[in-house]
């Protein structure tokens, strides 16, 4: 029996959309964000509803080409397209961006030129070495976000509320992390697709409700595969909600026992320190997250990969990148040369036309690992 099915996720999403409509009617603000570096705790503490916008598909990407060049990131193009078609995107009252890669740095400009909605652009240093000036600079950005949120909601972002939010989100992250430990077992007790599904709920639902759903599901006994399924790690660019197809395709022959994807394990890794100034704690936590490939240096990402490979007995890596996603594409060669495992590289633009070729490549890769 599955921990959580795709259908259940879709039901919860539909319910959440109805709930958001109701809450908006009551005057609540829905704040959309795109990246794992956004301190959701602040949005929550400001009385707004944080919702991660991590959807992306081929049709919305093509739609986005009316605003961007064809060689722009498919995720960014899709984001623009989604604002015209996706009910969740259309419910947002404001957006928070982080200047992660070049595309995400400039996407707010494209959004503000075409969609009239308040935007905050959070500046996170691209350099990952936690020198005091950088972390303090980021903390100052968090304070600017706090002020902007107060302006948006009219509610002061008080320390107590931030601490409450931190506690709730910490619980949520810890709950998923605990379930994720099941992927380390031989055979794994949890599927990668289920972990991605739970992460999705964590950014879609209100944190306490998400925790309750997790608790209910975590008690469900599962067993996903036999001993012979190769154990793979999934890495690369953002995997959108719609890309669960790909995850399931992989799981037809292999177990995804670990990942370093921002919509997967990197999203729920770690906890915010509860002692001391909560804004400082948030700055430290988000600054020091397992780095996305775009951060410099990104050695900690490789350290994490090596750790997961050892701890979870990974046999091969599936490296999925988005077309024109430079930060992840540039790492492919180095990753292949330095991790000492077979790597399957998949580069895509959400198009489904090559699905069967993809299936063949994945099957061949899995065969090779057996």
């Amino acid at each position, binding site marked *: 029996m599955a921990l959580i099915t795709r259908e259940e996720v879709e039901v919860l999403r539909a319910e959440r959309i109805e709930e958001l409509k109701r809450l908006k009617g009551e005057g609540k603000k829905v704040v959309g964000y795109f990246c794992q570096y956004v301190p959701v705790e602040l949005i929550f503490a400001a009385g707004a509803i944080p919702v991660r916008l991590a959807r992306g598909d081929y049709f919305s990407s093509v739609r986005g080409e009316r605003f961007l060049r064809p060689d722009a*990131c498919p995720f960014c193009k899709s984001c623009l397209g989604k604002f015209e078609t996706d009910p969740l995107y259309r419910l947002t009252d404001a957006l928070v961006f982080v*200047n992660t890669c070049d595309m995400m740095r*400039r996407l707010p400009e494209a959004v503000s030129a075409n969609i009239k909605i308040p935007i905050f652009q959070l500046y996170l240093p691209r350099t990952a070495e936690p020198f005091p000036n950088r972390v303090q600079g980021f903390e100052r950005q968090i304070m600017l976000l706090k002020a902007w949120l107060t302006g948006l909601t009219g509610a002061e972002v008080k320390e107590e509320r931030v601490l409450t939010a931190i506690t709730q989100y910490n619980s949520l992250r810890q709950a998923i992390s605990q379930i994720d430990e099941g992927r380390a077992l031989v055979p794994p007790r949890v599927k990668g697709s289920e972990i991605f599904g739970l992460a999705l709920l964590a950014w879609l639902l209100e944190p306490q409700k998400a925790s309750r759903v997790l608790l209910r599901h975590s008690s469900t006994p599962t067993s996903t595969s036999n001993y012979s399924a190769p154990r793979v790690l999934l890495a690369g660019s953002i995997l959108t909600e719609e890309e669960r197809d790909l995850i399931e395709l992989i799981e037809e022959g292999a177990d995804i026992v670990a990942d370093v994807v921002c919509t997967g394990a990197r999203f729920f890794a770690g906890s915010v320190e509860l002692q001391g100034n909560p804004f400082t704690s948030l700055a430290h936590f988000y600054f020091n997250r397992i780095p996305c490939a775009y951060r410099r240096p990104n050695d900690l990402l490789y350290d994490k990969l090596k750790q997961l490979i050892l701890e979870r007995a990974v046999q091969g890596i599936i490296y999925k990148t988005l077309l024109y996603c430079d930060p992840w594409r540039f790492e492919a060669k180095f990753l292949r040369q330095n991790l000492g495992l077979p790597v399957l590289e998949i580069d895509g633009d959400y198009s489904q036309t090559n699905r069967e070729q993809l299936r063949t490549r994945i099957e061949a890769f899995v065969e090779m690992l057996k």
Partner: protein
Amino acid sequence: MTADYGYQDPRPARITFDEWDDLFQRIPDELIEKFHYFPPNNEPWSKYLFPPQTFAIYGARHLRRLKFDNSLAALRLWGFINNESERLFRARQMGKKVIAVMGDLGPLAVIVNSFPDCVAFYPDCWWWTPFAMESKVLLDAAAQLGIGEATCFSRAALGAFAKHSYFPDPDLIICATGASCDDYSGVESLVAKMFGKVIWVETPLRICGETAQLTQLLTEEYRRVITALEQLTGTKMTETLLLNGIERSNRVRQLTHRLRSLAYENCTLPALETMMIEFGCLHYYSDITEWTAILEHLLATAEYRLKGNLPILKPDSLRLAWLTPPADPLLLPYVEELGARVVATEYVINQALTIIDTDADDPLGAIARSMLAGSLNGTSRERADLLIAQAEMRKAEGVIVSAILGGSHCALESKLIATHIKQRLKIPLLEFDVAPPKGEIDRQTITRIEAFMELVRSKRCQKS
């Protein structure tokens, strides 16, 4: 002019490679002997003014296809630019520290050059090499390391590091990231992995305002750079040294401003030479003293032409504004061939042109502010507005936005910028990607440029 050197320039003209070769024979040997890099050194090996054939044999094959300003100052400029690799290897032999500064396009070189016997160079500028050499060697080398063709031509810098023959392995590599593009950040990341250790410098964006806070952040980054250079050189950086370095850089920037103005307003220099002058603000082609002397020579030449009403291009040529430097040097001379002249540019390097405040209490803070004022740190709209202001001032009749297929910032901002400029200026705009190097402009681009020029010309005719 150049009477100071006892040589009279011919009447201003754009000349071919062969004409330059002929002209070179007329330059007295004593004059050629005068120009040396790393002055006051005047050793025979440090000459750099040679017949163009010399540089073509060494690999700069595109010289055979370009057109050049025929002044002695411009020939000196080309000799100096084409001699940079040799100069860097020679710097190492002379005991100078060779420092690679990457990604910030301007301010780091000011700091490095403030240290005696340090030579800063910009590997970023090797992006022209595949075009200059009409060769994909460096691009292929970059591809072998993981940066393939869906990326800006700046990946050539990675290939140059891998080949170890375009510049010496640096004594120190300083990589700025934050404001620079993903393509180049990726180059830096792989260079860092290749060499083991680099100094990373955060160059913040201007987007969230708060200049004071961003200045403070950047100043701290620069302090770390200074500490690393002090450890490398054994020289303690003082305020006097730093201010001296700033003043020397400011001199280059002032000269560049004046030259741009004379070129774009008064047709005293062609667009390609003017672009190379502007890019000299990044790293002074690895020798600030001689580069300053060359700029002074160019300025004297341009002012002589202005005074004598001797433009190098017809003042009534079609006036174009150009956004983003074209990676292929053939493009600027080509539009001039078609009867246009460039009157405004936005090459994303104006942080290297900003005059640094020398009255500030904190010189490092002043350098940081100059960086933060640049178009690299701002929005696409600000870039567009910069060009619009110049284009309006100089009555541009058309705008060219050149981009790189796969260049990460081009993909997002080109369309935004083009849309904004079109709305504001209401003049013809051509947006195209620069094709990979192959020794000639591809036919499709030629057709598009020619059609665009026809359009600009017809608009002018309609007005008159």
